[in-house]
Every structure is written in structure tokens, then in C-alpha cells.
């Protein structure tokens, strides 16, 4: 999609420049995303004109002050248009940009065009290593900012949590007024008996297209508890793959989302059970207003080598407006008989009986609906993984709902 020569302009030692060129060329060999492919089905990908964005190749010089402040309550990393802008250097984990390394680093091969492009055009592939047995006491907050207009940015973060280590990670895509494309790839490797809590907050501006990927693998007896809160973007997509690779590995993944105007929020999930006695539980709940759309397609895959699997998948969507539209497609692919799996999906308007009940207690219509929506999302909100940030997430959703009342529904 973008000229390989552009990738050459990014900083890095020879090995990385070679890798980027290879990736930029390799990207062409993958299928260009199209709604005809199953994983892009229902999406407006054909209308997005991704070619109008230009990869960000110059590191921004200045950023809004609010993003420069440090806090004692958490560790922080800031990327701006995909560039690693600032980070602190705690003793409990290691962080660096591959662009600063003289010696080659091995990356897993990308599995699609976006993965390949991300690697080709990421100015700072960020690598984080949490060493064996280490406990990172404060949450690590990764802030992403899209600042340059009409730019395509490619944040790339690999986090390796080694055996028996523990960390809480928050990844935030911040609001900005620019029109931009962001293609973030976050890869999290949860080592044996490691424990990871992860929260992604997608609060992008209304003119940002996001084509994101979250790739998690969990080792033996490892535990991953992740959540996604999505309210921003024009078309915002997140493909989540969670592979339970070691015996006894477990994962809990939840999401809340609220779309309005002509937003499209697109979630693709895959729960891959590759080892015995593994557990995964997925709960995605969304609210749609105006003519917004949501897409959920999810697959539970249980490998032949994974007896004793427990896997659950639920997607529920509440429509606040007749014009809103939701696609929800759960799938199972089971190769072993000794498993317990379930999937469920519903799309429904606000229940009239519930609204009447609340109104009959003297609660005005708009407020009654707000209570119903809040209550609907509460199941997920109350069990978000990173405590310190839950209040802020609830507030973001509240603000969005209040805007609705301000508009008169």
C-alpha cells in the first residue's frame, strides 16, 4: 500500500532497515483487505481509501503539555504517531526501542498485510520485558496519541512477561481532532504461571480509522485478564487473538463499547485452546445509538490436543435507536470431545417493560434509558481488570451517554 522507500527514512540500524524493507515488500504478497474475506465481512473496509493517509516518518517535536506529565501512581510510555516519545525507566522491567539496537532482534512473522505494514512502518518497535518472578507494583500506562493530520501511524509493542511475573498494563488511544489512520499491534506473551491484567481504552477522535490487533499467548498455568473499552474512532477495529498454549492456562476477556453517529465498531476475536485444561471466558457488551454499527465475530477453537477445555463466549448488543445496526456472529470449531463450550449472542432494543417500570417510579424517560444502559454495561464495568482506571472509564461512557441526552436522543 505504501512505498517501501518510505520505510527507509525511519531511524534504525541496518538490520532493522532491511527488515522494514522486507516487510513493506512482503505486505504486498498478503491479500489486500476486502469485505469479501471472511475476517473483513460486514466491514466498510472497501470504502476507507487507506491510500489517502501517508505514513508518519518524522518524529513530532512538540506535544500537548497534558501528555508530558509523569505520575507517581503509574509507570508511563507515550507514543506519538507511532514514535516512542517518552517513557520512564523502572527497575522492575526493561523497555527499549528496536530502533536503538545495533544487534538484530527476532520478530515473529506477521500473519497478514496489516501486521506486515505495521512492522515495516513502525518507527519504534517497543519491546518490554518483565523478568522472571518480578512484580511490577504500579500499572504500566501506555498512551498513544495521533497528532499529525492525514498520517498513518504504526505503534508496535511487544510485551514479554516471563515466568511467574506479574503486571498490570493499560493502553490508551487518546482523543484528538485530526483525521488519521492508526494501525497498532500489541503482542503480549504471558509466561508460565505469570499473571497479566490488561486494559485497552479506545477513545480516538471522530475522524480516526483504527485497524488494531491484540495478540495474546498464555503459557502453562498463566493467567490473562483483559478488557477493552471502545467509544471513539470513525471505523475502529480490533482483532483479538488469545492463544492458550500451556496446560492450565486461563484467560478472561471482556469489552464494553458505545457507538453513535455513523461510527462503526468492529471486533473480531479468536479464543484458541491449544493445550489441555485451559479456560477462556469472553463477554462483549455494546450499546449503539443513531445510525452506528457494530460488528462482532468470534471463534472458539479447541485443538485436538486440548481436552478438558472450558470456553465461553457471549456478545450482547443494546440498540438505542432503530437506525443502529449490529452484526453478531459467534462460532465454534471443536476438535476434541472432552470440552465444555458455549456461545450466545443477542441484539435487542431497550426493553419497553423495563422503561415503563422505571418511569412508573417517577424516573423521566431519558434518565430511565440511561439507567438501563448503565445497568446493562455494569456487568462488564464492575469486573474490569485494572482498578485504578475503572472510574475514568465509567466517566467516559457516562459522558458519551450524557451527550445523547443533550442532543435530545
Amino acid at each position, binding site marked *: 500500500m505504501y512505498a517501501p522507500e518510505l520505510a527507509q527514512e525511519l531511524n534504525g540500524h541496518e538490520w532493522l532497515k532491511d527488515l522494514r524493507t522486507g516487510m513493506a515488500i512482503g505486505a504486498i504478497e498478503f491479500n489486500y483487505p476486502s469485505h469479501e474475506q471472511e475476517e473483513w465481512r460486514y466491514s466498510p473496509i472497501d470504502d476507507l481509501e487507506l491510500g489517502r493517509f501517508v505514513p508518519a516518518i518524522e518524529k513530532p517535536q512538540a506535544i500537548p503539555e497534558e501528555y508530558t506529565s509523569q505520575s507517581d501512581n503509574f509507570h508511563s510510555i507515550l507514543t506519538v504517531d507511532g514514535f516512542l516519545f517518552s517513557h520512564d525507566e523502572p527497575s522492575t522491567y526493561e523497555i527499549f526501542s528496536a530502533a536503538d539496537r545495533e544487534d538484530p532482534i527476532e520478530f515473529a512473522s506477521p500473519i497478514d498485510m496489516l501486521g506486515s505494514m505495521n512492522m515495516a512502518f513502525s518507527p519504534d518497535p517497543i519491546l518490554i520485558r518483565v523478568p522472571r518472578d518480578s512484580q511490577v507494583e504500579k500499572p504500566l500506562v501506555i498512551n498513544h496519541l495521533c497528532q499529525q493530520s492525514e498520517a498513518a501511524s504504526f505503534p508496535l509493542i511487544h510485551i514479554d512477561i516471563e515466568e511467574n511475573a506479574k503486571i498490570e498494563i493499560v493502553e490508551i488511544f487518546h482523543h484528538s481532532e485530526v483525521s488519521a489512520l492508526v494501525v497498532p499491534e500489541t503482542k503480549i506473551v504471558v509466561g508460565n504461571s505469570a499473571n497479566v491484567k490488561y486494559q485497552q481504552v479506545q477513545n480516538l477522535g471522530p475522524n480516526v480509522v483504527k485497524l488494531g490487533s491484540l495478540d495474546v499467548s498464555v503459557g502453562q498455568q498463566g493467567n490473562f485478564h483483559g478488557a477493552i473499552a471502545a467509544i471513539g474512532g470513525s471505523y475502529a477495529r480490533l482483532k483479538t487473538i488469545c492463544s492458550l498454549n500451556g496446560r492450565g492456562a486461563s484467560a478472561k476477556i471482556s469489552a464494553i463499547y458505545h457507538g453513535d453517529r455513523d461510527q462503526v465498531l468492529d471486533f473480531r476475536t479468536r479464543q484458541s485452546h491449544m493445550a489441555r485444561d485451559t479456560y477462556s471466558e469472553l463477554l462483549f457488551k455494546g450499546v449503539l445509538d443513531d445510525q452506528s454499527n457494530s460488528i462482532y465475530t468470534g471463534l472458539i477453537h479447541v485443538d485436538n490436543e486440548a481436552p478438558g477445555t472450558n470456553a465461553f463466549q457471549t456478545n450482547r448488543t443494546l440498540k438505542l435507536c432503530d437506525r443502529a445496526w449490529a452484526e453478531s456472529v459467534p462460532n465454534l470449531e471443536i476438535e476434541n470431545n472432552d470440552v465444555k463450550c458455549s456461545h450466545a449472542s443477542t441484539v435487542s432494543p431497550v426493553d419497553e417493560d423495563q422503561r*415503563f417500570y422505571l418511569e*412508573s*417510579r417517577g424516573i423521566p424517560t431519558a434518565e430511565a434509558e440511561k439507567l438501563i444502559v448503565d445497568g446493562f454495561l455494569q456487568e462488564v464495568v464492575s469486573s474490569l481488570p485494572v482498578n485504578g482506571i475503572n472510574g475514568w472509564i465509567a466517566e467516559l461512557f457516562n459522558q458519551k451517554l450524557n451527550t445523547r441526552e443533550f442532543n435530545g436522543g
Partner: protein
Amino acid sequence: MTELEIKDLHAQTESASILNGVNMTICSGEVHALMGPNGSGKSTLSHVLMGRPGYTVTRGEILLDGEDLVGRETWERAQRGLFLALQYPVEIEGVSASMILEASRLSQSGDSEERLQNARKEAEHLGIPVEHLSKGVNLDMSGGEKKRLETFQLASLKPSIAILDELDSGLDVDGLRIVSKRVEKLTKDEGLGVLVITHYSRLLEELKPDKVHVFVDGKIVTSGDSALADELEKDGYEKWIPSTETSVSLGGLV
């Protein structure tokens, strides 16, 4: 002193006429019982009074202290002092009875701590476990627990007129006694006016009605004192129901 005056109330759904001229006046402190066979329109009357969407009032008035409620939203009627305890209380995940009380404009007196204390006392009085106030309203509750929670909301919101649609269904004997004692106390202490819809005189033995109305085919066919309830308990509604032949021919005319 509050007065709910229902005058010549006619209402219909898209397909059928369901209220055919209801007249009734309920004043503060009074208990009226509305009894009638299945399908006579008792619950419908309660919904129409509360302004549930799906019904059209074609004639008549619902006057609360002289103000016509027809055309008012449900929540506006509630804010003016009307309350409906539903026959089938609705389950709402993530919305607790406490949240409902906080959100309702009817219970804004005192600070939040005081309101919480009052709510706890009220719940204890009605035999409601305190955790039922903070979980999704009516969720995973038995029929009797739901009815206690309806009574809890009634007592907490302090309306001036309450319509109790089969409050007795689902309640065991002890529950029925506790709930009806509480309603009776509200009529005495707070001057609550009550319209009780029920099939059974069991509730009326506890909650002695000032007036009993027999409701057939969308209207009141006769009214009397509590002795009428005893008579209905013994003889049923047969003498008030038009014979099948007649109703068929009437149906044909309509």
C-alpha cells in the same frame, strides 16, 4: 387530601376496545378493591391509568386533584403522586431498588445517608434482605420477594394514590400479612389512597376495603362494601357475566 377521579374512561388497543366507560373516585385514605374474572381488563385499567404506551384513551378523563393525566407521560403521572405496583415486576440487570429510589424525583428529601438509613429500616420491616436493595431489581427473586420489593418501593416513594395489581400473587401467608399491614399503615398514617386489583378475598381480609367494584368487559358492573367481596368469594362472577350467546352477538355488533 388527594382525589383520583376516573370519568367515563374508554380506551383501546390497535385491534380492540378494552375499557368501556370506567367511573370511579378514590380519595386519600380509602381502599378500593377491583375484582373481576380473567381477561375483564383489570390490569389494562391499571396500565391505562399509569399511561403505558400501546393504549389510546378515546374518551373520558383521569383526574388527579382536578388535573387530567390523559396525555401525560408515565413518569409525569408518577411524579404527580400515582404509583403502580405491577402484577409481574420487571427484572432489570444492573439497576437496583436503591438506584431507582435515588433516580426517582419522588424521594429527594433528606441527605443520602438519611435516605439510606430509612431504606434499610423499611426493608427490614418488610423482611427484605438488605442485599436485595443493591442487586439488579427483581433479578433472581421469588414471586413473593418481588412483591415485597414492590411494597418497599411504594412505602419509600410515598405516592398519594397507589394501584396494586395482584400484589397478593406469589406471596405466602406471612408475606401477605406483612405487606398488607404495611399498606394499611400507609393509608392510615400517610393518607394513601389505594386501588387493589385482586382475585382473592384473602388480601381483602387483611386490607379492609371501603369499596368493592366488580369489573366485567372493561367496565364496573356493580359496586358495594366489603360484603360484596364475600359474596364473590362464595358465588363467583357468573351472575355479572353476560351469557356467551349475548357476548357473541354483541361482539358481532361491534
